[in-house]
């Protein structure tokens, strides 16, 4: 082989190596582009789901505002009624007949002061004593209850480190057992492990008969005593009977 041919072959081999390296760089660039394109798509999907969550929260906020408005009107009506009743009572107490019959009422009062047997218990189950809990309710109990039943979801553990062995709702003394031991991985990630309550989630479905009630969420600790996690007044107006 002559010298010029050998040089040419050497140059061709060098060019080929350069071309191959270039092809590899170009392919790497495309692979990166595909990765970024797919990542962007995933981010877009995530953004979309976040927007949907925001829309749902805005809707819940609007519903809550509407409930507050209705409750405010009820409160105003109750205050007006209370003021009217107070005025009526004052008028009665100022009347001549009230003053004339005062000795009779005193006599009746003396008779009633005599001890009598205890009145029958009005409620089936008294609320359990309270205790400090760390808790959160995923479904807010502060609303007007419009269905015939309602399901509350949340998580809780007592601050004294005991385990929750059962949960229930107490509506004016009526008990509704719930389900507990539901995983709450995000909660544990935030608050740290809870050795006695590794699955602190719960879910309780209870009836919501028309009217005003006292709702208590109660937890049984270490399979013995019941303690109240939280208590609040609720107002139920099942659909069609509001």
């Amino acid at each position: 082989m002559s010298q010029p041919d050998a040089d040419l072959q050497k140059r061709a081999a060098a060019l080929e190596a350069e071309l191959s390296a270039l092809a590899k760089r170009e392919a790497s660039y495309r692979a990166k582009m595909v990765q970024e394109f797919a990542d962007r798509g995933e981010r877009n999907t995530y953004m979309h789901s976040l927007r949907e969550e925001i829309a749902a929260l805005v809707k819940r906020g609007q519903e809550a505002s509407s409930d507050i408005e209705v409750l405010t009107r009820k409160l105003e009506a109750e205050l007006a009624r209370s003021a009217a009743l107070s005025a009526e009572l004052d008028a009665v107490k100022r009347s001549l007949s009230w003053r004339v019959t005062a000795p009779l009422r005193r006599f009746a009062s003396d008779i009633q002061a005599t001890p009598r047997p205890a009145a029958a218990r009005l409620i089936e189950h008294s609320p359990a004593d309270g205790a400090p809990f760390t808790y959160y309710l995923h479904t807010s109990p502060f609303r007007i209850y419009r269905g015939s039943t309602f399901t509350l979801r949340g998580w809780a553990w007592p601050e004294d480190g005991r385990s929750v062995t059962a949960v229930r709702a107490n509506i004016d003394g009526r008990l509704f057992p719930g389900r507990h031991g539901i995983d709450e991985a995000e909660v544990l990630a935030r608050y740290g492990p809870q050795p006695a309550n590794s699955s602190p989630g719960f879910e309780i479905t209870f009836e919501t008969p028309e009217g005003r009630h006292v709702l208590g969420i109660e937890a049984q600790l270490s399979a013995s005593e019941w303690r109240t996690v939280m208590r609040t007044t609720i107002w139920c107006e099942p659909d069609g009977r509001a």
Partner: protein
Amino acid sequence: MSDEAHERWQGTTTALGGRSDYKRVWDRQAAEYDVASLAVGGFIGEDTLERRAEATIETLRAIVGIRPNDVILEIGCGIARVGKPLSHLCLHWVGADISGEMLKHARRRLEGCGNTTLVELATVGLQELPSDSFDLVYCTIVFMHLFEWDRYRYVQEAFRVLTPGGRAYFDNFPLDSDHGWQIFTQGAQYTLGRRPAHLSMSSSREELRTYLSRAGFERIRIDDLPNGLISVSGHKAAAA
């Protein structure tokens, strides 16, 4: 026929069952790994998976070639049966599947394979992937589970995402091989109301050739494979 009558007629037609709901059909089958493995390849053991994957890779090597600098896309990668070993032979392997559940298994199997990417497809098509990006697009043991329109959609999309000069490969079973006829007769045993949504349906050579031809591919080639399947391959014209 008036528009109003046309509308009423459309309202009376019945949906073609759940087959088109590919995401639901395959997510359900992929809930557990062994069932997913059975659903995508008819076998469970890792050894068998690898052996069958090697056979597929040999077919790809013989028909469309596999090069070290290739950026490769598999349509309907399932649990990455082929992708796992193939990723060692190319620059980058991308697995796309409509079933997010299948991809969970694939992700686990591909741990340690840095040159791989998994993409969950929202629906039929490759809208999650950019144009002119891949040197090789292949789709194996997938067409039998798709309606014809969707098979063609993937061929069209493969053409779009291929670089100029890129290669494509698709396969299915034909009726005129013993293996194909066996699958057909097994499917025929289902009663009308019990046909599963994923029931395998054949392709003819002309059908596959037509898809690639209509999508714009060149140098289209049909091959009869030793395992009783037929394949179609083609090239996207190189840039002038």
